[in-house]
């Protein structure tokens, strides 16, 4: 069933696209993810995830303007679609619902 469930990494990528607003292209997403999660994120994986997200209809993409950097190649910018936003919200709600039922935040002691 496509387009409903988000994987953990997919969710992170989607959030990144949303956060980067109009500057969300593969290399930037990769850098942003590395910065926030602290783990090395491989370009190959991001590419695979982006193409999967696009296939699911959660993101849209368009080619930007040609610049002199990148060997004259255009960037492909991504933006989150409505379906993408819905999926993000759904994921967030599911998490919050779970957080809410954790009794009295006694998680602190176990950390």
């Amino acid at each position, binding site marked *: 069933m496509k387009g409903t469930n988000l994987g953990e990494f997919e969710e992170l990528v989607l959030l990144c696209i949303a956060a980067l607003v109009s500057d969300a292209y593969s290399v930037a997403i990769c850098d942003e993810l590395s910065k926030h999660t602290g783990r090395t994120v491989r370009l190959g994986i991001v*590419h695979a995830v982006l*193409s999967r997200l696009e296939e699911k209809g959660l993101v849209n993409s368009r*080619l930007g303007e040609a610049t002199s*950097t*990148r*060997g004259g190649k*255009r*960037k492909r910018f991504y933006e989150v679609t409505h379906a993408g936003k819905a999926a993000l919200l759904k994921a967030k709600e599911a998490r919050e619902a779970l957080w809410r039922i954790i009794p009295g935040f006694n998680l602190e002691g176990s950390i």
Partner: protein
Amino acid sequence: MRLFNTTPTSPHKQTGKGVIEPPRLAQRLLAWYCRTEILEDLQGDLYEYFDRNVETKGITRARLIYWIDVLKFFRLYTVREPSFTTFYIYIIMISSYFKTFKRSLVRNKLFSFINIFGLAVSISVGLLVVAFLVDLRSYDDLHAKKDRIYRVVSTYQLSTQSPMEFASTSIKAGKRIREAITGFEDLTIIRTGFYGDAQVGDNYLPLNATWADESFFKVFSFPLLKGDPATALKEPYSLILTEKTAAKLFGHAEALGKTVRFDTVNYVVTGVAADVSKFSHLRFEALVSFSTVDATVGKGDPGFYNWTNIWQNYVYLTLPENTDSQTLTTNLAGLSVQENKALKDLKIDVGLQPLKEITLGKSLSNSVGPTMKPTVIYFLGGLALVIILSACFNYMNLSIARALRRAREVGIRKIIGAPGSHIFGQFMSESVFTALLSLFFAFFFFLFLRKQFLNLDTHVSDVASLELSFKLIGYFLVLAVSVGIVAGFFPAVFFSRINALQVVKDHSKFKVFRHVNIRKGLIVLQYTLSLIFIATTIIGYRQYKGFLNFDLGFKTENILNISLQNNKSDLLIKELAEIPTVEAVSRSAMVTSVGSMQGTTIKYINPKYKTKDSAMVSLNVIDGNYLPLHQHKFVAGSNFKLRPKTGEESEIIVNEQVLKRFNIAEQNAQKAVGEQVMMDNKNLTIVGVVKDFHYGTMENKIEPVVFLYSTEMPWGSANVKIKTNDLPATMAAIENAWRKIDKVHPIKAEFYDDQIEQAYGQFEVMIKVIGFISFLAICIASLGLFGMVVFTTETRLKEISIRKVLGATEGGLIYLLSKGFLILLGIAAFIALPATYILFDKVVLTKFAYHLPMQVYEFLLPLLVLMVLAAILIGSQTLKAARSNPVKNLKTE
């Protein structure tokens, strides 16, 4: 869908260090496999990363990372779907190439013939080498554990001499490994040399069997048709027959459980094994349980189980799966050190040899089954490669020479839109088609060559059968395609770089004679190789004949050596002496000068200086008639005087080298007679000194040799000197005499001269092979030269006509046309002849202690042959051109 991507050139990034681009080949690879939708995106991303890496990690690492990334991005979601159209276009293009190939094949029949004939002949030699190699590689493939089976081999080193490597080892080594060392799965000890006459009822069959212990079938996978592999070799006097042997002994009757008598001992047949495949290094007619050895040969002989008795026993073991032999090798080295402690002046080290390296590996003494040194394969492969390359050179030369005609075709193709890569593909496929067509003819030639090759020498047909198989045909195709690629690469590059506009606009500007130096170089190379081959053949043949006719120091003419085969010799000698055409008969343990050797150690105490000295000397045990019959010359002393029984010998005859080695009586032969030496703790008096003679082959220097007297030599030979005009009658009489003595074994008799010829048989084979290859090399080179001459005269026909009209003579024209080619041949001779001389003088002939000096004619003859051949080829064509009617040539445009 694009077939070939023309990547838009990217604006170069200017940095302080200049332009740094990712590797171009990797970029093209990416563009080739990546789907168009994401290609640009991906290229840009990788470029960005590349830039970063250049800054942080340096250019080299950045390029490497780019490559790795390009390869890593080869994923399902990035790769283009192979579309039917792409495939279809390929098919169309290839069939179009095939069409042009056919046309150009027919258009110039002479060139096509030269190409196809040359390639076919050279490929067929290549096929032969491939088939031979495949056969050798398939040895011992029948064993399930073939990759885990190892043989324990020994290195035998006397303190004063260089080490000798043996395939055999001691029984003790096998037993000690079994007891004291871990890290192997199964181990089996076998022993060769069970010869006997199997007797069933009144039926005798001489049998050559191998002793093997009960683990034999755990290590090896020889199929046992009847009997239990676990127990069949357990009890003493158990016998396993192969199917063929069983049929010979018992006919159709059941063999299992029956008894077979050897001499006085009964053996029970406990199993019937399938006949041993040709491709097994271990070959046997029957197996005898190893426990029999303990009960017979080894019984009461403590020395038999010594660490030093390494002559006839073989130990094979299997390693557990997924382990390497390293630990075991170390353990074996430890074991050797331990055992060698007890030895004086001698070291025997045991090591491992993988099963697959037994047949195709380094040659060891006492090896069982056929072996082939890898150098032989390299040698044959090298020869095949040389003539294949020669044929490829022809192809290159003729293709480029024809460039004028085909350039316009290429020009038109380019103008209507073919990129360089298409032209490249076209010419490559043409050469591959040519090679495949050649393969077709080569195959028939191979079938003929195969027969010749197997008949070269019994050794060759023993080692290989060169049977066809699907795998082999596959290799053949691979070989042909690679030859096509090699031959076509250079012309394809040449044509793909042609400037289309220039060719089509004004084709007189097109330079036909471009690359002329490369073409000349190729001709020189071909002729250099041909000359080396011919000179090698001639020198080799003369040396070989020289070996056969060398003055050995004794006479071998008309001497027939009859192998005694364990018979009492006195009776036979008596019978033989009664034949009127037999002049004299003698006996000897060894037939000398044919390569085999028997050694012993003698000691000499110098009476003057009281120094002790001992050394290895070669030995022959002979009877009283031997020396006169072979006309050995005495320097001093005389033949044996006493004729004692075995064990009571007190006399010894030595050669001059013995005196030299031990400095006996200051090397004075007269005084040396009467001196004493020690052998096996017995004092022996020197009664005679013979002139030095060749005990070994021409490869070895003359070494010290001693003769001992005996009449008991069951495994020796009777030497019969014959004087007759009716050889068949004499041979029949001798055979009659033999049959009176031995009814079971057929006579084994050979003339001494034939035996010597066999000893140098490998050289004969080598000369035949090189001779054949040089013949092919000359043929191919001549064809190539012929093609070039035809081409040159054709292109220059108009020039010749004009010269003729203006008054040039025929002779002058011939000189003009052939000058260039003759200079090339001169250069080839200038390189080849000194090279051959150095090769023989410094490398080949140094391996032979005795050889004939090289002669000038051996070098001039090949030159003459080639010059005459070339003169005929060049002369016929240039003469034709010079004589042609100039008016006709100039009128018809």
